Structures are given as C-alpha cells and as structure tokens.
C-alpha cells in the first residue's frame, strides 16, 4: 500500500470478500454518489471507492492542469489506485465519464481488469453528422462551460450548498452532508471540458475486457442511440436497458442498478 496514493485519491476499502470491485465516480460528484450501491456488494467483494484528484476529499494540491487536461490523467489515477492496493482481477464499475476512463485504463493494462461495468456511458457527447448521435451540439457544450464559469466567477454562493444544513433530513450524517460533491469550481469546470469535448470512439475496438453497459431510459446525457453504438463497437459487451430514468441510476434507482450488476456478475466464472 502506498500511503501517498491513498491520501491523494481519498481511497476507502470496505467489504468482506477477496475479489476487488473498484467504483469510479463520474463528472460532477465524488465517491459519495455510490453510497446507496456499494453496501450491497460488501458481503461478497472487496469494495474500493476513491475520488479523482480535484474531486471530493482528494488532495487538491496534487492537481495539475497538464496531467488532468485529458482523460488519460484520470485513467492514470485509476491505475495508481489499483497498483497501490496491489489489486488483480478487478471488476471496475464506472459511472458516465469513468466508463471511458476504464476503457483507456483497460487498453493500457488489459490484464488488470476482469470486467468493466459501465453505468450510463458515452464515448462522445457531441453529435457527429451524418451517422453519430451523441445528444448535443458543440454550442450546447459551450453553453454548459460558460454557465459553469458564471457559477464560478459570478455567483460564489454556489458553494454554499455544501454548508447549508437541511433540517428535513436528520438521517444524513452531517459530516457526509458537508462534504458531498464538494469540489473546486475551477477544477470542476475543467473536468467538464475534458469530459464533454472528449471523443473515445476510436479507442473502443482496442478493448478486450468483457463489459456490461447499463443504459437508462430517457437519459438526456447518454441517449439510447449511444448505448446501441457502444454495444456495436465493444466486443464482448452486454447491453442492459434499465427502467431507471435520468443519468444517475445508482443514486435514483439503486436497487435496480444493484440487481443488474449482480445478475451480470453471476454469469462471470
């Protein structure tokens, strides 16, 4: 175990099993987003969660615009965590952009991973005429980045939610609440740029690790056409359509998400 990586990426290890499941969070949040899902796997697996540098409680000082200027930097974080814990045969569960982070990591070290579980994945968010439907035009993404800049520069109170207490929810641990999705807004904006301008379609044919694709219904960020495209492009992929709507089924519909992952892993030898 390398203590520096553990601190840098705020790595948490739980579970009573031996086979490792690593959960990688998507853009816009941190490992807290898995909290409704991971307990279901703790009896049978070694459950590893972490924050990418610049998200959650990672060491922000380790952030560099160079390293994290492309998804390769995030893939390196994932590999660093696996190496630090000396993991093998890893089942990677990645949400959204982390699905592509997993694609990149598995191409670099195919032997490290046994399965890739992709929750609401997309290899490219911007439409590419005439054949590819990503769901957005370039100017839409520009609008997103501009809006995030506004939230950063103009309306600093946006950071307030992490310190605002909600008296209607006494069940939530205050500490957790105070840190939920806390992130430096400038880093978050850059992460958005890296995520939403990325195009990983050409990487897909190089993936050799079998994968599960969880496609939500009515997902604005990763529409059904994208799931179909991925299924066609990834050899050894299984496509499952969830009833869950939206882009974060592991938060809004954790039971269905857990059941789909469990069913898939049950087929793994």
């Amino acid at each position, binding site marked *: 175990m390398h203590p520096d990586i553990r601190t840098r990426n705020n790595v948490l290890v739980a579970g009573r099993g031996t086979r490792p499941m690593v959960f990688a969070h*998507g*853009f*816009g*949040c941190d490992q*807290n*987003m898995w909290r409704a899902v991971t307990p279901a796997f703790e009896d049978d697996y070694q459950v590893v969660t972490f924050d990418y540098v610049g998200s959650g409680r990672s060491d922000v000082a380790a952030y560099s615009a160079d390293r994290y200027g492309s998804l390769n930097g995030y893939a390196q974080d994932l590999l660093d965590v696996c190496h630090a814990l000396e993991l093998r045969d890893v089942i990677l569960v990645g949400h*959204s952009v982390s699905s592509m982070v997993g694609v990149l990591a598995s191409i670099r070290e195919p032997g490290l991973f046994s399965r890739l579980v992709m929750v609401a994945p997309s290899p490219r*968010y911007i439409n590419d005429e005439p054949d590819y439907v990503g769901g*957005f*035009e370039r100017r*839409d*993404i*520009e*609008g*997103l*980045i*501009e*809006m*995030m800049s*506004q*939230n950063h520069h*103009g*309306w600093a*109170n*946006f950071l*307030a*939610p*992490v310190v*605002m*207490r*909600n*008296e*209607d*929810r006494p069940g*939530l641990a205050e500490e957790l*609440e105070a840190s*939920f*999705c806390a992130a430096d807004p400038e880093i*978050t904006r850059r992460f958005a740029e890296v995520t*939403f301008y990325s195009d990983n379609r050409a990487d897909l044919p190089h993936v050799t690790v079998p994968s599960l694709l969880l496609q939500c219904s*009515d*997902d*604005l*960020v990763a529409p059904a056409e994208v799931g179909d495209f991925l299924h066609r492009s990834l050899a050894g992929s299984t496509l499952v359509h969830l009833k869950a*709507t*939206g*882009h*974060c089924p592991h*938060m*809004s519909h954790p039971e269905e998400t857990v059941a789909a992952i469990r069913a898939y892993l049950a087929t793994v030898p």
Partner: protein
Amino acid sequence: MSRPPDDATLDLVPSPFLRLGRESEVLHANAALLALGGWRRDEVVGRPVHTLFAPGARIFLQTHLLPLLRGAGSAEEVFLILRTRSGEDMDVLAHAVLRADGTIDCSLMRVRERRRYEDDLRRERQVAEEARGELELQTEELLEANRQLEEQAAEMERQAAEMEEMVEALQESDEAARSSEARFRAAMDAMPGGIAIVNAADGSLVMFNDTACAHLGYTHEEFAALRIFDFDLEWNARAQPELRRLHSSPDGVQFRSRHRTRGGQVQDVLVSLRALHDGHIYVVWFDITKQVRAESERQSLEEQLRQAQKMESVGRLAGGVAHDFNNLLMVIQGYAALLARGRLAPAEQAQVAEILKAADRASSLTRQLLAYGRKQALRPEVLDLGQTVARAGGMLRRLVREDVEIRYGIGSPLWPTRADPHQIGQVLMNLVINASDAIRGPGVIEVRVRNVSAPPEGSGAPAGGGPWVAIEVRDTGCGMDATTLAVAFEPFFTTKGLGGGTGLGLSVVQGIVEQSSGHIWAESEPGRGTTFTVLLPAVEGALALPADAMAAHVPPSAGTVLLAEDDDAVRSLVALVLRDGGYTVLEARDGEDALRVAASRQVDLLLTDVVMPRLGGVPLAHQLRRERPGLPVVVMSGYAGDALNIGEELPPGATFVGKPVNPDALLRHLKDVIGG
C-alpha cells in the same frame, strides 16, 4: 416540519416556483413560472425539469446539480439558463431545497436585476478606489514635507550646538568677545530660522537675529522691547515648566508653539530651547504653518472619504432593498384594492382596509429609503423657492407646537432654481420637525430664503460653483455638541429616543438635496440653537406654472392602453386594474415587444416601465411618439437607476407615476391624461 403550501397558494407567490418529483419531473409550476416561460400549465407539468432549460443547463442539471441536491439537500444562487416556449434564453438564479419526501422545491429569480446591482456596486467601488489613490498621493506629499521638516530640525540642532560653542567662547574672553560677537551676529543673521537669546528670569530678549523680527513683522527696535511671551502664545504653558530641567537636558527641549505676528496673525512654529550657563536661554524656531495645514487637510480629506464610503454603501443597500420591496408592495396593494372592491362582509372589508393601510405605511417608508438611497425618480422643474416655501407654510404650521413661532424671511427677487417641489416640501418638513423637536418650551423657528453668490467655507459646495439659492432653517432650540453634529446626517441616528423618530429624517433630506445637485450643512452649539442651510443651484429658465393650474379636471373616457412592463406580477396586476377600469389593454414584456404589438393596433395611451430589457421605456416612448405624434405617455417606475431625472429625458407632455401606485390613483391619472 411545516405543511407544504397547496397549489392555489403557490400560484399567489409572485416569484417563479417549481416543485419536482422523485424522478425530477415537474409536479407543480406556479403562475409566475408559467408567465416567465410563456408556457401553459399542461405543457410543463409531468415533463422532466431539464427540458425547461437550455441544453448546457440540462447537462449541468443532470450531471451536477440534481445529484448534488439529492446528496447535499439544498443549493443557493445557482446560475442557470431557462429556455422559454418561444426559444428565448433567459438567465436565472435558482434556489432549491430537497424535501423529506424526496421532492425538490425550486424558486427562480431573473439575473438581470441582481446583475445591475452588482454592476452599480462595482462602479461605486471603483470611485472609492480612485478617491483612495488621491488620498495616498496626498499622504506621500505630506510625508515628503515631514521629511523636509525633520531635516530642518536636524540642521537647527547642529547650528544651535555651533552657536552655543560660540556663546561660550564669547563669555570666556572679553577680548575675543568683540571679534567673536561680530562673527556670532553674522552667523545668526544668516540662519533661516528665528533665533533669540532670552533672559530666563523675565523673558526679555538679550539678542536675536534678523529672521526673528522680520518673520514676525517687527522692526529691530520694536522687537527688542518685547518679552518672549508677548509673541510666543505657548511660552508660559509649555516653555516655563521646562526651564528648570533644561540644564539637565544636554539635547535641549523641543515643542510645538504658536507665534503671533505684529499684524495679529498666528503662525505654527517648532521651537527648540537650550540652556546657557548664565541664566540665559538659547531659543531657535521654524515656521511650520504650511506643514500643519497640509496635515489637517489630509485628516479632513480622509474623514470625508470615510464618510462618503459609508453613506454610499448604506445608500446602495437601502435603495436596492427598497426597489425590490416596491414591486412586492405594488402586488400587495393592488390585489388588496381589488379585494376591497368586491362584495365582502363588513368585517372582511375592515380587514382588507387594514392591509391597505399597512401597505400604505410601508410604501411611504420605501419612498423615504429610496430618497435616502438617492434613487427616487425626481420630477424637477424650474421654480421660485420663495413661493415653494410660502406654499408650504400652512403645512409647516401644523407640524409644530403652538408655543413655537415660525418666522419667514424670503428675499426678493430670488433666482430661479431647478428642483422637485414635492421633494423640497419634504426637505422643509423634515427640517422644521427637527427644529421643533429641539425646542423645549416656547421658541422660534426662522425659515429664510435668499440668493447666495459664493458659498461660505465649510459648506462643501465647490468654491467656483454657484450662484445658489439658500434655504436656512434656524431654531432657538437646545443645539448640538460637535460629536452629535458630526453624525447628525447618518441614517438611523436619532436623538429622539425609542419611538421618537426613525433616524432617517436628515439622511433623507441629505439624499434629496444631493440628488438635486445641492449641498446641505449644519451649524450648532449647545444652548445656542441650530441652523441648517440648504444650497440649491440657481438656473436660467422660465418658471413652471403651479401644478393646480395644469390639472384641469376632465371626464373619464376609456380607450386602448399599451402596457409595457417586464415584471410579470406587476404587469398582470396593472392589466387587471386597467381592464377593470374599462380599458382595452395590450400587454408587452419589454420595449421591443411593445413596438411589435403597437405596429398593428390602435393605441390611445402608452403606460410603460422605465428599466426593461432590450428596449427601455424612455426610448420606447420617443420611438412611438415619432410614429404617432401626440400619443399620451405615462411612465411608471420604482426608481430609475442611472436615468434619475426622468423629467429631462421624456418626450414633452409625458407624465410620471411612481411605484407602488394604487389602482384608483392609476385610473384617475390615466383618465386625466387621456381626457386631456
């Protein structure tokens, strides 16, 4: 936990509001939200919330804001872009909170207003920064002057030591004395400061240099007859007590003093004393009047800047709050007035009347806050201040006790000045009430109006400005000490005790006067009464006719009103009132919209807000007037931001209604305008 409000109640909330279900679908959208986006209710309810927003905002909602809300529970002031039914993008700030049952309540606010306040604040900060820069420059100059002074003092020390040696040599030898004395005198006369050898016992001047008597304006003979305390005003207080310990202080003693010249002027001086061995004192002094004046100017400038910054920030705050409050008040007053017209039981009538009374009081407080924040839209006209004061006489009499007499001294002829007569009435009223409160028992308040060519020192008016017309309100009351006087104009400062006053009176007066390009100051001493002086700039121009002569009563006649107002709640209310009053109403949400609507329709009157997106009310009025000469124009506004003096910009004959306006008053005003 409180029960969530029902749908009908939410529709009454004037700000746009949404409630989202567990799947982030819209469960409820209130009337204001529907009005903002131009949607029908069935077009919104049941839809995923992100579909109400521009694509960038949709991603932001899905990937960031909604997960964050579900995790953290609430979010404040999140900048989002709404996409209205017509495809227009609109910047909004969202406040959202997650409820225990998993639903999310979200209210929206348009960014435009907030951003305007922020821009205003940024501009003010810049002004303050520039003022600070100037102050720093002055400070540097002063530091330089101080450095020069220190050099002079060091030089003085050095020369004093030299002189002392010479004096000692003089005492040692009579023979040497005669030639030494000549050298000594030559050296003394060459020195820049005043030098004297003083007999410690009686203060007489044994010897002195030319500079000493020349600086003080005496001839040699006159000066020789003086004793040092005749011209050194601090000698007895400062030097005399030091004489005893002077012998034991090898470096001598220094102090600041004041010298009186032969002509009676007073100079600030730095004095250095050194004991000689024969009961004489060696005294050297330098004139430091310039440095002392520079220092006091700097202190005063610093104080002025501090005061200006404080007043500006409080003013901004008051003006900003009052403006938002005005719009809310208008909705409250309007709906209450509509309720009052309906069939209500007597008890309910009385309750609605109470609501209206409270709203009236709140609206008067808002006007005071706006006046203090200097954002009240003025309607200035050229007027004779003497006549304005004379007309106010009856009202002023009612404000003071019977044992207080009001005397008037109105000069004639007075130069015309330009101001809002109602505001000047407010100024007089506040000053006279203050004066009356300061008088215990019988007393006199004197109100004088006169022409002033050059303002006196300390008035704050620029020396080259003017001419001015002055209003003075003088009382024979208890007066104020310097400490009280210094804070008299500050908002919320009051001497009247709990319940006696709001502490806004004088700051309101100051706000009005400064907005009218005038100046105000007070002079007072405990026990000797107080005089407030208001200076207003004299102008060239014809005097306006008295308002009563213009307002000929005309019978009502309904017609078509083009209503341009960007605040949806206010627009809906005003439209309702107008329709109720028999008018046909064409609604427009800004100036451009109004031009589009007007293009194909007959319009009898334009009723418009001033500040609107895309095209404001004033340019709208001008453009419509070009197309339709003679179109009656009525402008309404809570405050007019940068366009403060609306009367100067509007097309001729346009009239003005201040917000909040009550429905009956608005209808009367429109009838007058259309009829006329």
